[in-house]
C-alpha cells in the first residue's frame, strides 16, 4: 500500500480513498494492492498522473548506475600502454579502447566532443592525470555512465595546470550533468590523496586498482551517509 502510494507519488491516505471510491483501477486486498500494470499506466497517463514502479524509474535507475565510481570504472575498463604522442592522438586511441560503447558513430562523436573540450581548457588536473570529458552529455540511449582509465605508453604534454606531462587519462562519460558532477567530484576526491597518486604511478594491475578505488568509494559513502 505504502509502496504503491510512492509509485503514484501521492499520500497513502489519498490512494486508499481512491481505491475505496473506485476511481482508480486497483483492487485492494488487506494491505496489498492488486493491479494490472498496463491498465494502470494507461489510466495514469489519461489522468495526467505519474505512475512509476519502483525500479523502473529511468532517473532512479541512472542514479543507481552512476552512484558507483567503481561500477563506472569497471564498465569503462582499465587500459594499459595507450599509444600516441599528442593530445588528439592519445584521445583517439583511448576512445577506441573504451569498453561499453557499441556504435562506431558514438565513438567518433565522443572523440570530437572530447577534443572540443580540450580546446577550451585542458582537463589535465595535475599530478600527471587528466580527466577528458564531453561538455554536454551524449544523447544515446545505450550510453552508460562510464570511466575508462587509460595508462599512456608515453607521457604526453596535456597543457595541464601544473605543466607536468600526463601519464593517465580518466575518460569520463555520463548521461547527465548531475552524474557527471557527481563522478567528477569523486575522482577528484581520490586524486587529492597523494598516496593514491604514487600508487597510480606504479601502473597497478586491474584487480589491485579496483580494490583501491573500492576502498575510496566506501569512505565516500560513509561520509555521505553522515
Amino acid at each position: 500500500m505504502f509502496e504503491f502510494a510512492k509509485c503514484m507519488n501521492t499520500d497513502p491516505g489519498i490512494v486508499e480513498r481512491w481505491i475505496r471510491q473506485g476511481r482508480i483501477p486497483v483492487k485492494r486486498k488487506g494491505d496489498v494492492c492488486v493491479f494490472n500494470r498496463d491498465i494502470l499506466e494507461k489510466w495514469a497517463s489519461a489522468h495526467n498522473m505519474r505512475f512509476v514502479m519502483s525500479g523502473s524509474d529511468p532517473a532512479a535507475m541512472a542514479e543507481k548506475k552512476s552512484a558507483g565510481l567503481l561500477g563506472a570504472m569497471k564498465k569503462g575498463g582499465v587500459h594499459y600502454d595507450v599509444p600516441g604522442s599528442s593530445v588528439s592522438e592519445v584521445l583517439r586511441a583511448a576512445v577506441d579502447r573504451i569498453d561499453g560503447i557499441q556504435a562506431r558513430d558514438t565513438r567518433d562523436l565522443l572523440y570530437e566532443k572530447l577534443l572540443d573540450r580540450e580546446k577550451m581548457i585542458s582537463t589535465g588536473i595535475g599530478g600527471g592525470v587528466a580527466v577528458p570529458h564531453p561538455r554536454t552529455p551524449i544523447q544515446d540511449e545505450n550510453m552508460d555512465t562510464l570511466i575508462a582509465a587509460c595508462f599512456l605508453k608515453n607521457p604526453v604534454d596535456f597543457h595541464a595546470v601544473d605543466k607536468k606531462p600526463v601519464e593517465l587519462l580518466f575518460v569520463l562519460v555520463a548521461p547527465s550533468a548531475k552524474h557527471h558532477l557527481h563522478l567528477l567530484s569523486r575522482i577528484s576526491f581520490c586524486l587529492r590523496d597523494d598516496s593514491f597518486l604514487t600508487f597510480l604511478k606504479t601502473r597497478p594491475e586491474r584487480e589491485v586498482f579496483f580494490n583501491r578505488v573500492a576502498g575510496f568509494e566506501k569512505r565516500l559513502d560513509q561520509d555521505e551517509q553522515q
Partner: protein
Amino acid sequence: MGLYDKVKTWIGESPQWLGGDDRLLLIIFGALVGCCSGLAAVALNFSLHAMEGFFSSYRFHWYFFVLPGMGAALSSLFLEKIIQEGAGHGVPEVVYSVSRHGGLLRMRSMFSRLVSSSLTIGSGGSAGPEAPVVMSGSAIGSNIARFFSLNERQRIALVGCGSAGAVAGVFNAPIAGLVFTIEVIVGEWTALNIVPIAVASVAGAQISRLLQGNQIPFTHLHFDVDISTTLAAAGLAIITAAGCILLTRAIRKSHHVSGKVPVPLWVRAAIGGCIVGLVGLFLPQVLGEGYSVIQKMVEGSFTGGFALVLMLMLAKIAATSVTLGWGGSGGIFAPCLVVGSFSGLMYYRGIDALWPGLLQVNEGCFALLGMAGMIGGMLQAPLTAIFLIVEITGGYETILPLILVSVISTTVCHYFEPASFYFRDLIEKGYYLRPRTDAKVLADLRISELVEKDCISVPKNMSLGEFVKVVQQSRRNYFPVIDEITGAFAGMIHLDDIRPYLFDTLLHDTVFLEQIMTTDVETVDIDDDLSEVLSRMDVSGSFSMPVVTNQRFVGMVSKATLLDKYRKELMLQTTD
C-alpha cells in the same frame, strides 16, 4: 470454494479480462438489483391492495377516523423502536448517502420503509408508496454491492439501479425510472451510470409486468389536443406551481408545529393520523394513495363542481402535510399526482365556466397535465415529470402541452423555492453534493491529505541567533513555535515578520522567539471541513494556515498544495 467465493473471485478478476472495465459486471448486477427492487415494488403494491380491501368494509363507520391514526402510530413505533430510523420518505436519505457515503445504506432499510409506509398508507394516511420503494430498492442495490465488496463508484451505480428498478416497477414506467434516478438520485449523466440503470429499469418493469400484468396505471380516452390546449397548459403551470409551493410549505409548517407538541413520536403520529381520518370522514377522496380518484379524473368521469374540486385539492394538501409532517411514513409522489390532477381539473372547470366551449379536449387531459406540472415543480425534475406522465397514462398525444406545463411549473417553483422538496434539508445542512462539483471535490479531500509536514518546529525560548541557523536549513517560510515543556503549539513565525531583525547580529543573542512570534494565529483542526477552512482563508486573506490538533502542531495547509491536489482530484472525478 462456495458460490459466494467463486463469484467474488470472478469479480476480482473480471477487470483483467474485460480490459479493466467493469461495465459488464455492472450491467449484470444492475439487472439483479432491478429485479429485486421490482419485487419490492410489487410486494408493496400487493400489501396496499390487501389492506385497502380489508378495511373497505369499515370505511363507512363513524369511528373509522381512528384507523389512520392507529396505522401512523404503528408505523412510527415500528420505525422508532424496532428499526431505529427516522420517519420521512427516504429519498433525501438515499441522496445523502450517495453524496456523502458512497451510497452506503443499511440492510434494514431494504424493508423498513416498505412496512412502515404500507401501515401508514394502507390505513388511510395520505402519502405515496413510491419513495419508500425507492429507498428499499436503493438499499437492496447498496447491500448487494457491499456483499460483493464493490467499490463506491460501483455501489452508487447499483443504488441508482435499485431506485430505477423500484420506480419502473411501481409505475410500470421504465423510462421514468431511468430519468428519475439520473435526475434526482445520482445527478450525473454518464454512460457508465446510464447503462446499468437502464438495464435495471427494464428488469424492474419486467418483473412488475410478469406479476401484475402489463397494465397502464391510468388508462384514458383519446384526447384531441389542439393549440388551445397547449396555450392553456401554460396557464395551468402557474396553478400547479402554486400548488407545489403550497404543499411544500404546508408540509414544512406542519412538521414545525408537530415538533412543538411535547408527546412521544408515535403519539404525535397517531394524532396526525386521526386528523387525516377526520378529514377523510367528509372527503374520503383524500385518503390513501388516491390512485382510484386519479383514474376517475383522467377518465373524465369525476363528478363534482369547481368548488368541490378546489376543496378536495386543499384538503389533499392538508391531509398530506399532516400525515407526513406528523410522523407518518410515505412519499410525496402519489399525493403530488392527486393534487396535480385536482388542480388540472379545477383549472379546466374554471376556464370552461368563463369561456364555455373554448377547450375542445376532454377534462381528463387537464388532470393529466396537472399531474405533470405538480411532479415537475415538486421534484424540480421536469424530465421525470414528462416521461412519468406519458408512461403511466399511455398518452403520447399530449406530449406538447405536457412538456410546456412541466418546464414552466419547474421554473416558477424554482423561483419561489430554490431547492426542491427532496433536497432542501440536505442543502441546508451542506450535505447536498452533486458529482463533478466544487463542493464534492472539496468534500472528498481531507485536511490530513493536504497537510505539509516538512516545517521545522522551534522552541519558544530559542534565541534569534540559533533560529537563523534553523532558517538556513529550512526550505519554508513558516516556523511553528512550540512550548518545549508541554509540546503545545504557541505561535507562528513567518520570515517576512522577522526579516528586519534577522541580519542584526546585536539582536541575535538578546531576542528570543517568544518575543517575536505571532500568537493570534488562526489554526485549523485536522478534522475540519475543507470548504470551511477555505472560506476562513478567504476571509483572513491568508495563503496557508497551521493545522493544530489537541494543541499539537501537525503541519501546514496551504492553497498551493490544495490547488495541486484539487486539480488532480477534479481530473480524476471528471474524466471516466
